[in-house]
C-alpha cells in the first residue's frame, strides 16, 4: 500500500511537467497555429529557470524566468509565422534546434552548479492522512496549479466569450476577421501564452523535478507534450489525464522492474507511449468528436484581406 502511495505521488509529479507544456500547446493550437518548437522553448526555459534559481534561490522567480524565456522565443516564432507567413512546421523545427543549441551555450557555466536546499511542501493537516496524505498533499504547489489551470482553461474555452473568439480564430480566421477580430494579434497572444507555459514546464523540470542543468535535459518531453495535445483532441481535461497517464505508466514501468517482474524492460519502456496513445485514441474514437474539437485551420497561414 505504501508503494501505491509513492506511485501516485510520483505520477502526479511526472504528469505535471507534461501538463504545463501540453496545455500551453493546446492554447497555441486552438488559435490555429502549430508550434513544433516546444522542446527548444522548454530547454531555454530550463536553463533560464535554473540560472535564476541559482542566483536568487527562489522557485517562483525561476518559474517566471522560464515563462519569460518561453514567451520571448514564442513571440519571435509568432512574428515569423503570423506576420511573415513562414511555414509553421519548418519554423517550429528551427526553433527547436535553435533552443537546443542556445541552451547548451548559455548553460556552459551552470553544468556543475547546484541549487540551494528547497523546503518540502505539504498542506498542513491533510498531509497527515495515512496513504492519501503523502500521495496527494505533499506535492509541490505547481502540481495543484496545473490542475487549477486545466479547470480554468476548460472554463475559458467553453464558457467565456474570449474563449469563443479564440476558437473562432482557430476554426475560421476569415470569419473572425470579417467580424472585426484582430486575428493576427489574437494568434500571437495565444502563441506567446503557449510559449510561456512551455517555459514554466521547462523551469519546473530543471528547478524542481530534476534540479540540475545538463545539456539536452528535456530529453523529448516537449515532443511528447505536442503529441499529447493532438491525441487528447485539444480538450484540457483530456490533456491533463493524458499527462498523468503517461507519467503513471512510466512510474509503473520502473516500479514493476523494481519489484523484479519478469518482463523485458525494453518492452516496459515502450509502454507509456503505447498506453497513452491507446487510451486517448479510444476515448476520442468518435470521428465527429474529433472534427468538432480539432481547430479547422490548424497549421494554415492566414492572409487578411485575401
Amino acid at each position, binding site marked *: 500500500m505504501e508503494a501505491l502511495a509513492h506511485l501516485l505521488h510520483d505520477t502526479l509529479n511526472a504528469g505535471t*511537467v507534461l501538463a504545463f507544456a501540453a496545455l500551453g500547446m493546446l492554447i497555441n493550437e486552438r488559435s490555429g497555429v502549430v508550434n513544433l518548437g516546444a522542446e527548444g522553448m522548454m530547454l531555454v526555459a530550463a536553463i533560464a529557470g535554473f540560472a535564476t534559481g541559482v542566483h536568487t534561490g527562489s522557485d517562483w522567480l525561476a518559474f517566471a524566468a522560464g515563462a519569460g524565456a518561453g514567451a520571448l522565443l514564442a513571440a519571435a516564432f509568432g512574428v515569423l509565422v503570423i506576420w*511573415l507567413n513562414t511555414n509553421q512546421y519548418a519554423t517550429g523545427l528551427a526553433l527547436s534546434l535553435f533552443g537546443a543549441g542556445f541552451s547548451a551555450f548559455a548553460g556552459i557555466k551552470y553544468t556543475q552548479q547546484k541549487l540551494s536546499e528547497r523546503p518540502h511542501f505539504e498542506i498542513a493537516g491533510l498531509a497527515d492522512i495515512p496513504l492519501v496524505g503523502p500521495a496527494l498533499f505533499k506535492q509541490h504547489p505547481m502540481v495543484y496549479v496545473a490542475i487549477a489551470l486545466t479547470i480554468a482553461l476548460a472554463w475559458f474555452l467553453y464558457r467565456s466569450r474570449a474563449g469563443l473568439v479564440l476558437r473562432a480564430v482557430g476554426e475560421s480566421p476569415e470569419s473572425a476577421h470579417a467580424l472585426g477580430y484582430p486575428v493576427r494579434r489574437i494568434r500571437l497572444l495565444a502563441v506567446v501564452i503557449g510559449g510561456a507555459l512551455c517555459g514554466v514546464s521547462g523551469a519546473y523540470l530543471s528547478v524542481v523535478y530534476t534540479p540540475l542543468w*545538463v*545539456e539536452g535535459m528535456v530529453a523529448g*518531453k516537449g515532443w511528447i507534450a505536442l503529441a499529447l495535445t493532438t491525441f487528447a483532441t485539444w480538450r484540457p481535461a483530456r490533456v491533463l489525464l493524458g499527462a498523468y497517464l503517461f507519467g503513471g505508466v512510466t512510474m509503473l514501468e*520502473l516500479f514493476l522492474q*523494481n519489484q523484479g517482474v519478469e518482463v523485458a524492460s525494453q518492452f516496459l519502456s515502450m509502454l507509456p507511449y503505447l498506453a497513452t496513445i491507446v487510451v486517448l485514441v479510444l476515448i476520442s474514437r468518435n470521428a465527429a468528436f474529433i472534427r468538432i474539437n480539432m481547430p479547422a485551420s490548424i497549421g494554415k497561414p492566414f492572409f487578411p484581406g485575401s
Partner: protein
Amino acid sequence: MTRISKRSIIKAAGWGSLAALAALAGCGKKEEAAPATAASAASEPAAAASAAAPGKLKVAFAYVGPVGDGGWTYAHDNGRKMLEKELGDKIETSFVEKVPEAADAERVFRDMIGQGNKLIFGTTFGYMEPMLKVAADAKDVKFEHATGYKGADNMRTYDSRTYEGAYMAGVIAGGMTKTNTLGVVGSIPIPEVIRNIDSFTLGAQSVNPKIKTKVVWVNEWFNPPKETEAAQSLINGGADVLMQNTDSPAVLQTAEKAGKYAFGWDSDMTAYGPKAHLASSVINWGPYYIKATKEALDGSWKAGPDTWWGVKEGAIDLVSISDKVPAELKDKLEKVKAGLKDGSLVIWKGPIVGSDGKEILAKDAAADDKFMKGITFYVKGVEGKVPSGDKK
C-alpha cells in the same frame, strides 16, 4: 494597386521567412559550436588554428555526447587535454562533439580524414561499424575505437575496466547501507553494464554478505528526467545507496534530495550532490591517449591486441571519497585498490554463483577477459532477471 501590394507582401514575406529561417538555423549552429571552441580555446590556444603546422601529427576525437555532460564525454575530453599537455609540441588535437551513433558518424570520420588527421579516436561503442568502413578506405590513417570488439589492420580497440570502479564503489556501498538494499539505474542491458552491476554487488558483498541489489533499466544512456524517476523508484523500493551506469548526474541529485547516498560515475560528480556523494568512480583516458599517440609518432603503432586498462594502469580510480565514510571502510578500500594495482585481488574469481543459484565460476577459477566481455547474467544478490533474457 491592391494586387501589386498583395504580391509584394507575399514576396517580402517569402524572403523575410527565408532570411529568418537562415538566421535561426545559423544561430543554432553557431551556438552549438561555440562551447567547443570556447572550451578548447581556453585550455590550449595552439589547437584552435585549423591549418596544421608542418610536421605536427593531427589527432582527432569524435564524442557521442556534449563535452559538458559531466560524465562519459567529459572524461574523454579530459584525456584529450592531458594528451595535449604532454605532447602539445608534436601534435595538434581537435574534436567533434555530439556525433550520433549512426550514419552521421561515418561522414564525421571522413571529414576528419579530409582535414589531415592521421590518428582518430572514436569514443563510443556505436562508432564501430562506421569506423570499420572508413578504415578500409583510408589505410594511412590509424583508428582507435573505444569499447568495441572489431578491428582491422589500421584499427584497434581500447577500453577501461569500469567494473573495477564499480567493485570499489560496492565496497563502500556495502559498508554504508542500512537497509542492505542497493539500487542501480541501468542504461542499456549490454555485457559492460551488466558486468558493472554484478561487480558492484560483489564488492558490496565482500563487506556485507546480506546485500541485495535492485536494478531498474531506463534503456537510454542519457535522459535526466527518466533517470530521476528510476532513482526515485529504487528509493521507494527501499534502496538507500544508489549507483548508475547512465551518463548524467541525475541519480546522484535525486539521492541528495531524498537524503540517501549515491556515487558519481565516469567523472567526479561531487558538485552535484555533496551530501549524497560517497565517491566517484572515474575513468582516466589520458594515459592511453598518450601511449597510443606516442606509438603513432614513433612508428611503433600496430593493430591489436586490444587494450583493456584498469586500476593497475591508472585508468580507473575511485576518487573524492566522502568524509561520511568511516576510517575502517576507507582502509578496506585502500587494500582493495592496492590489491587491484598489484594484481593480487581478482574480482571475477570463483566461487561465484548466478542469481538463479547455479555456480558460474568454481572455487579459485578466475574469469578471463573473453568470459568477462560476455557476461549477460546477474550474480547472486541481484534481484530480477536480465531484460534481454538468458542468452548464454
